[in-house]
């Protein structure tokens, strides 16, 4: 009833989505927090080079190894070493590098991998999944079985194998994570297109004489892109966690490499003597991941017509 009435209202028209989003933000400030956090992490990543030199991670300050001179936090641990000198707000790591600076250098590394993986997975998934669903038959079967094969292996195992075989470099890492990720998008896009192509407007376009590619790429895919974008937003966090986990278990190009999981890895050995070393990089990962997840959840609510009242 209310649905009917709203549809008929020309005044709510195109601004309905925007207005609804504002309404949601008002109702649910957590979503707003998600948007702020993800925006902030992207901004920090973009400004990283201005804040800290991008070669900072390669310097070693032997005298400042594992020290804490921030008076604000007392760790209550017997052997915390105060190195004096410049204040390191989050302490230093094994190589005497300031942890705060390292985190700032590491954020763009993680985000870049995540964005690359998610964007490529979305493109591959949408095209393959869309074609599979629209064409059906043998094409569908082949694409579907291919995803089955990749989905039968836990992603992290496949990534380990790839990194071992192809070498521990960032491009290999990105590829390895992408290889474990694309099948999900094929499945998602396929199911979206499958239900969308049953809609009457597709039938109408066929009757009009529109060609298959035109219907698929100009009409169906633009109409199914939102769930895929939402999944992409949610997956930024998950990809960052996977990448950092792979780095954490030691599949890094360089032990000093500025990546949040790798920073945490150094900390695990000193977990009882220098707990900040694992605490802050992990916390950064948590915050970024929560940010994107909250944002994704919020956008999903915006575009879920059934939740609207």
């Amino acid at each position, binding site marked *: *009833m*209310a649905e*009917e*009435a*709203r549809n008929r*209202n020309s005044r709510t028209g195109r601004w309905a989505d925007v207005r609804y989003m504002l309404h949601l933000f008002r109702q649910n400030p957590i979503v707003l927090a998600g948007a702020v956090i993800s925006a902030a992490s992207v901004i920090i990543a973009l400004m990283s080079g201005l804040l800290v030199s991008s070669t900072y991670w390669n310097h070693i300050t032997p005298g400042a190894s594992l020290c804490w001179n921030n008076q604000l936090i007392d760790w209550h641990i017997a052997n915390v070493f105060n190195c004096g000198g410049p204040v390191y707000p989050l302490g230093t790591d094994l190589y005497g590098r300031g942890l705060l600076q390292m985190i700032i250098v590491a954020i763009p590394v993680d985000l870049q991998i995540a964005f690359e993986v998610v964007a490529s997975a979305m493109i591959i998934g949408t095209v393959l999944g869309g074609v599979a669903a629209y064409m059906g038959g043998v094409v569908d079967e082949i694409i579907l079985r291919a995803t089955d094969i990749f989905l039968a292996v836990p992603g992290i195992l496949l990534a380990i194998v790839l990194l071992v075989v192809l070498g521990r470099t960032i491009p290999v890492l990105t590829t390895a994570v992408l290889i474990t990720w694309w099948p999900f998008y094929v499945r998602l896009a396929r199911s979206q297109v499958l239900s969308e192509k049953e809609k009457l407007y597709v039938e109408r376009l066929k009757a009009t004489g529109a060609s298959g590619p035109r219907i698929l790429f100009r009409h169906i895919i633009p109409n199914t892109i939102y769930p895929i974008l939402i999944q992409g937003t949610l997956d930024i966090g998950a990809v960052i966690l996977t990448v950092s986990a792979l780095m954490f278990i030691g599949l890094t190009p360089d032990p000093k490499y500025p990546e949040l999981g790798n920073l945490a890895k150094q900390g695990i050995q000193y977990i009882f003597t220098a707990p900040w070393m694992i605490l802050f990089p992990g916390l950064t990962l948590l915050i970024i991941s929560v940010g994107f997840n909250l944002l994704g959840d919020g956008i999903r609510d915006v575009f879920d017509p059934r939740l*609207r*009242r």
Partner: protein
Amino acid sequence: MTAREEAGPILKISDLRVTFHTYAGDVKALNGVDLTVRKGEVLGLVGESGCGKSVTSLAVAGLLPPNAELESGTITLAGADILKMSREEIRQKRLTDIAMVFQDPMTYLNPVLTVGSQLLEIITQEPKLFLPALVRHRLEEIGPEGKEAPALAAERERLLSISRGGRPGRKEVERLARQYVVSTLRQVRLPDPEKVLDMYPFELSGGMRQRVMIAMALVRRPKLLLADEMTTALDVTVQAQILQLLRELRKEIDASIVLITHDLAVVAEVCDRVAVMYAGNIVELAGVEELYSDPLHPYTKGLLASIPRVDSARTRQVSIGGSVPNLLFPPSGCRFHPRCPKAFGKCPQVKPPLVEVKPGHLVACLLYEE
């Protein structure tokens, strides 16, 4: 007919106002609805989509969604005000007094539960409430004392002891409930009811599903049956079957029926009185023959003229201009005035009251004000 008209009201709704709070704004769905349903009558509630006919029935059953706000009004069912009741009291009313039948039996029946499970749960959740009826029904089935098999005689003894206050076992209640439900399914002319109990809704045809839904209502022996677009999703031949069933049932049960529909032909077929709704108001209320032969409200006139008829040769369609208003921004005064061919100066300013212009014929239109 006359005896019915003199009978007292079973349901009385007065000045009911309901607003839905949506993110886009407030939808003023009901704008002061006044309606009475008499004992034993079939009242047709007609109107187009969004006129508030379904909202009215949901309000009576206490099933409005959480974003609906009851701004004013009273709903009196057999003397008790429903709107003043607690959630639990309204639930009890739904269990025993008010039953609803909905449009699309496919989506309204739970797909993963058997028909039997969905029918029996009504009784088994509070067996005490139904026990006397179950026992009475079974005793009637067994018949008076005579030369029956000893098993039946023993059963009669057991039943009599229950009716004197004895406590039956769980199994006994379930058996009685099953027998009771089977006879209700028979009452809605469903072939092979025993088998239907163990079937899932998707295994039944549309007409059978609708009969199951009607049986769910009848099991409770309700005082008021709200049938919301009961035949809309059905094919004409099945619709004819259901309408015939409805005509037969009204002689067998003593419930008042409110038939909510957009189809004036269905109303003409089974109703005693008709209320026409438009944009949240009752605009006209009259006996069925009176309404069809002498409609007063311009909307009713337009509506009747715009129905294509199967019993007359080709004519050019007459239609009401414009479309149903958006209730986020309802028209002022009489809500029909923007589409009304007879609108005049006062119409946008004054909301016309529902007044009786002829005996038993009420209309809400400024044209008929003295």
